[in-house]
């Protein structure tokens, strides 16, 4: 256990992971029932990476998130009711129903938004980093992106510029083995994505993304380095999405066996067991925690359902400031 990971923070980390899981399971159900529309990218199975990364940040730090961003958003402290309201397209949602799941943002909470464009957040993160440097603010920007994003040109431009200017940015790659149907083994000529860091003279590290402690340790080091002016780090967190890419996915590009194997490595089960083993938490307490989470989710749904829809007459109101 890392020194700064107090029992309290660890318990709260586990709770956040439970929240993400339960929130997404509920969102999936609502989607099936037609109460949430559009598309939906679930991060079930990847909770340790979102929570571990954000755990290393201070509240005033920034994140930039992805299409698979519910976990990032919850980890950064978002209110579940306003999130659910957003999914249901309500006026009380984080984006007042304009953004939906793929564009959820919690600007006040430091989440500068999920992004529908793969790698779209990377150039922005560099801008946030530059902004902090110019304003001499000791804030870090951690940008999440997937393995697929690491093959976009934006990845290269962003890492290079952040590196030469030593910007306070953490590049956090959630390698879940697939970009939609494209397997990492087919899309990358190297074994590790973190090997790319050397091209920018940056530290690059690959961690077990399903191990909360490992993710936290890597992120904490990167955040400290960024905050102290030593520039960016590339972190590759290896994980796996249990669900299909989105709702249209028939999983033709992977085997049921592979999915089953990864389910064995459930990050939540793992953290729960470790915390119990370490005496941080009792089993009953853990069960109570989960029950409380489910109540929160139910309340979030109730809040969302009771919320009004946006007024079509106001459609063009928020285009310009």
């Amino acid at each position, binding site marked *: 256990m890392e020194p700064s990971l107090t029992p309290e923070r660890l318990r709260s980390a586990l709770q956040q992971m439970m929240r993400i899981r339960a929130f997404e399971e509920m969102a999936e159900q609502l989607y099936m029932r037609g109460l949430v*529309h*559009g*598309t939906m990218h679930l991060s079930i199975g990847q909770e340790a990476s979102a929570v571990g990364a954000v755990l290393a940040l201070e509240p005033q730090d920034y994140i930039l998130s992805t299409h698979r961003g519910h976990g990032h958003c919850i980890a950064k402290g978002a209110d579940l009711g306003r999130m659910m309201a957003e999914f249901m*397209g*309500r006026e009380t949602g984080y*984006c007042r*129903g*304009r*953004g*939906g799941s*793929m*564009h959820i943002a919690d600007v006040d909470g430091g989440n500068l938004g999920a*992004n*529908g*464009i*793969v*790698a*779209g957040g990377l150039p922005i993160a560099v801008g946030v980093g530059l902004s902090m440097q110019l304003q001499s603010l000791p804030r870090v920007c951690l940008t999440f992106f997937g393995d*697929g*994003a690491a*093959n*976009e*040109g934006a990845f290269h431009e962003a890492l290079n510029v952040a590196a030469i200017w030593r910007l306070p940015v953490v590049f956090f790659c959630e390698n879940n083995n697939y*970009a*939609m*149907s*494209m397997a990492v083994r*087919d*899309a990358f000529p190297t074994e590790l994505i973190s090997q790319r860091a050397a091209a920018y003279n940056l530290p690059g590290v690959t961690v077990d993304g399903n191990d909360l402690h490992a993710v936290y340790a890597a992120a904490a080091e990167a955040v400290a380095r960024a905050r102290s002016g030593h520039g960016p780090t590339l972190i590759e967190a290896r994980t796996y999405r249990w669900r299909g890419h989105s709702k*249209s*996915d*028939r999983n*033709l*590009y992977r085997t049921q066996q592979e999915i089953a194997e990864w389910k064995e490595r459930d990050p939540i089960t793992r953290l729960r067991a470790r915390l119990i083993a370490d005496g941080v938490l009792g089993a009953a307490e853990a069960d109570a925690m989960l029950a409380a989470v489910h109540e929160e989710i139910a309340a979030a749904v109730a809040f969302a359902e009771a919320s009004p*829809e*946006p007024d*079509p007459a106001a*459609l*063009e109101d928020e*285009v310009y400031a």
Partner: protein
Amino acid sequence: MTTLAPAEATTVARPQRELTYAEAIREALRQEMRRDPRVFLIGEDIGVYGGAFGVTGDLVHEFGKDRVRDTPIAEEVIAGLAVGAAITGMRPVAEIQFSDFVTLATEQIVNQAAKMRFMFGGKIAVPMVVRLPGGSGTGAAAQHSQSLEAWFAHIPGLKVVLPATPSDAKGLLVAAIRDPNPVMVFEHKLLYRTRGVVPEELYTEDLKAIVRRTGRDLTLVAYSVMVIRALEAAEQLAAEGIDVEVVDVRCLRPLDEATIVGSARRTGRVLVVHEAVRSGGFGGEIVARIVESEAFDFLDAPVRRLAGRETPIPYNRTLERSAVPQVEDIVAAARALVRE
């Protein structure tokens, strides 16, 4: 969802087999790939996954991973792959998974593909196709729902095609593949599941406008999904005694001015309808062409436009619906115009 009666009914000689728009595209690809070994497909998740919208489907099983080639997520190189292959003997068909992502490939398409022939004094040809699923209506929100065809219609060297029906989806795509120039084919996501009669044999459609329904009182000029809505609106208006002509533009560059102007001349009243944002949309071009033409003297009312509102596409269903023209909006605008 919508089976097209009017225009299809005129192609009586062809067998009455129905396909969806997506199936028609797949058939066009399959038949052209069988016929011409130079044709191959590149894009994200077009292989085993079958395409984000199921368009390429099982093609990888027939043609293999070389000719139905999944790429990493790298749109600029997808376009570049097409350019490089096209100028050295191949006939690439690239897919940009959602047309919004073409913003990452505009350099290659606009500066390279479109200009290469001209810059090199006519000494090269760039026979490539880019397929671009676009449009709103699926709840995919602002970055997955745009209609950017007007951008490419502004670029000399490109052709820009927007099929509205399954049979056009096939015939126009085959024409695009055989065209020696770079052709942007905008497909509408809402059309993929629409059904219509599609001839089984290989055929091409001209990159020209077509009158889908004749009428005397008013012309609706539309393309892509708005053709379907215009035809529905025309049916409703017919019940009110308003006789509407529907012109399907099909190709924005080169623009078949003659067909549009001819219809405008006949009816004297024109409503241009598109989903793309009104300001700077291609509707302005169509209005201008009509006004500049001899049809001007035959106009009984100003040419009007009905188009997307001045906003990104919102997520909320009701907002999304209200952001682009619906059948009832077309009916209302047409009715008002006839009374002007």
